[in-house]
């Protein structure tokens, strides 16, 4: 009897070990991916579209049988661009839904709020939908994808000073981890490379929508260019309010402002607005973009093609490539290693993905300048490898 008990006990223990060895969120037939997005708040346009873009890729892959026989299931919750809600959602995803990885988590302040938690639980934070430099230098569990806000701002500053010969530059930034990334990097770039400083540093709070006092301060500073570390609601409103007091500087900002919504809201006030693009425009040629347009037409017919859903689409495409490389034995470690193995990989649109190394956990550092002309975003520069710009 005693022996029998020992055997049963051992079996239970072994069983326990066997259960522990399988990763959360991975079964023979399925992989469960989590995402925290803003679906109803101040940056809902980004959230809704990122989800649609990721869903389009996963739907196509699932229809073709999945990755190594596993279908991908995306569970996304709405955090309304509010850090406390992002934390609740992350706990729900990790502890109740047992997700394999977090992917495309939207927003810098919201993703920063769940950063430590994901790290404690050893859940990889793959390609969060925020290009703050923090994701490329925070260790094993975080991997960014495209050129960071810091590096993009480096490009902006160099362009303004060298090509436009503008020396009076002001910064208008969201007062949180998002706005500060580019704001501080721009300040450092001005000081170290050009021996200059911002002529005004003007902040706003997330979800603010009245910028008349900011416009007044910017006008008083006499800045010839204003770098807007903002999303899509702010640049049109700021431009409007600056124009209302007869102030017409160059407005230029990082990739989150480069969306069709900015133009829809701003109309003639955003003509000439400039931005940095870190992946091709949705209307560009290329096999990958043809597939994107076909997938969006099939799986998200109600949404127009836009940089926002392309952003989610390319994240999911790179992630699927990593899962292909990880093979049938899918673990958090194996998928992270697979991501790190990606070098010089072009899904078919001219933009190459390659893991930057442990000091720069990102997949691409390409960027180019774009501007609004006749109500459309068009390119003004060619692709270039952006230089790394520190925040100090």
């Amino acid at each position, binding site marked *: 009897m005693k022996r029998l008990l020992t055997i049963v006990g051992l079996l239970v223990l072994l069983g326990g070990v066997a259960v522990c060895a399988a990763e959360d969120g991975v079964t023979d037939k399925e992989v469960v991916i989590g995402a925290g997005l803003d679906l109803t708040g101040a940056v809902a346009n980004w959230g809704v579209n990122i989800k649609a873009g990721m869903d389009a890729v996963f739907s196509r892959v699932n229809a073709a049988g999945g990755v190594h026989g596993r279908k991908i299931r995306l569970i996304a919750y709405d955090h309304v661009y509010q850090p406390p809600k992002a934390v609740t959602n992350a706990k729900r995803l990790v502890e109740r839904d047992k997700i394999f990885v977090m992917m495309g988590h939207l927003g810098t302040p919201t993703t920063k709020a769940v950063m430590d938690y994901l790290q404690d639980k050893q859940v990889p934070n793959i390609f969060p939908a925020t290009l703050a430099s923090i994701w490329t230098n925070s260790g094993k569990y975080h991997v960014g994808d495209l050129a960071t806000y810091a590096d993009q701002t480096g490009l902006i500053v160099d362009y303004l000073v060298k090509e436009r010969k503008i020396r009076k530059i002001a910064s208008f930034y969201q*007062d949180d981890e998002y706005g500060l990334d580019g704001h501080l990097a721009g300040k450092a770039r001005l000081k170290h490379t050009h021996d200059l400083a911002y002529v005004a540093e003007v902040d706003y709070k997330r979800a603010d929508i009245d910028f008349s*006092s900011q416009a007044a301060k910017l006008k*008083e500073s006499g800045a010839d260019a204003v770098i807007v570390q903002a999303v899509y609601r702010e640049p049109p409103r700021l431009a409007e309010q600056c124009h209302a007091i*007869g102030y017409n500087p160059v407005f230029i900002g990082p990739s989150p402002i480069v969306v069709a919504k900015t133009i829809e809201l701003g109309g003639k006030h955003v003509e000439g607005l400039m931005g940095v693009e870190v992946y091709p425009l949705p209307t560009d040629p290329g096999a990958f973009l043809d597939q994107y347009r076909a997938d969006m037409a099939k799986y998200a017919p109600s949404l127009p093609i836009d940089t926002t859903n392309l952003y989610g689409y390319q994240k999911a495409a790179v992630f699927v490539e990593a899962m292909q490389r990880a093979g049938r034995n899918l673990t958090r470690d194996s998928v992270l290693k697979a991501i790190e193995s990606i070098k010089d990989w072009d899904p078919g649109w001219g933009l190459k993905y390659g893991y930057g190394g442990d000091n720069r956990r990102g997949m691409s550092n390409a960027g180019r300048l774009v501007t609004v002309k006749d109500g459309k975003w068009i390119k003004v520069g060619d692709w270039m490898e952006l230089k790394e710009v520190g925040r100090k």
Partner: protein
Amino acid sequence: MTEILSSQVVSGLATGCVYALIALGFVLIFKATDVVNFAQGEFVMVSGFISYTLLIGLGIHYGLVLLATIVLSGVMGVVLERVVVRPIMDAPIFSIVIATIGASIVLRSSAGILYGYDVLPLPTIFSKDPIRVGFVQFTAMDAGVIGFSLVIMVALYLFFKLTRTGTAMRATAQSQTAARLMGVSVTRIFSLTWAISAAIGGVAGVLIAPIIYLDPNLGFIGVKAFAGAILGGFGSIPGAIVGGMLLGVIENLSGYFFNAGIKQVSTYILLILVLVIRPAGLFGAAPIRKV
């Protein structure tokens, strides 16, 4: 300096006028029925969507849209009073207030389900190009908002002072029992009060949505307007107007002299200060209790 400051004051007044209109809606309902209607902000949001649908969806002329929006908002006020408030009129005031909060959540979510949570640009007839008068710089939009708000306020004043219905409404606000004894139909007055409040909210929506964009969360502007109403002395009509306008200007100036953080809390700092010094608000009558 004076040039910039004066533009700040003008654009602050424009936002303040919208606060004042919403605050007026709060105060009218409160005076007549003792209920604080927390769905007041939602009148602003819903009217924004009504005019968006009429303008963009159906392509109707702007003037007609304006009129239709005001009428439809009024109807919404009456429906809300009938469906949500009247059945529980005998319940404690607190329950009614909670019911209005519930109504606001329902309205907000319905707008989200119908239109999505994305921000939409609402067209307007007022240009956003700069105008210069002397050294003051502002936009036609600012001037239009201020002018239109003032017209509405004057019209309301005349309505309350000169018409029989207006007098009946004032009478009901003073004493429901006495009004009833004088032959005033108090339930009809309640309906009318809600209709007027919602219609004013509708005007505020048409004026503010083109400025701060239209989305289902637009109704949260009601919170600031509520603060404006308290600032002026809750229950006082001139108080609501002055409180709302003051709020708009103070917000702008504090953002100009300090930063975005201070701008955000300036409203509430001011509110606390006023309540400490004058608990009844700027225009409110101190409560008199018979001992």
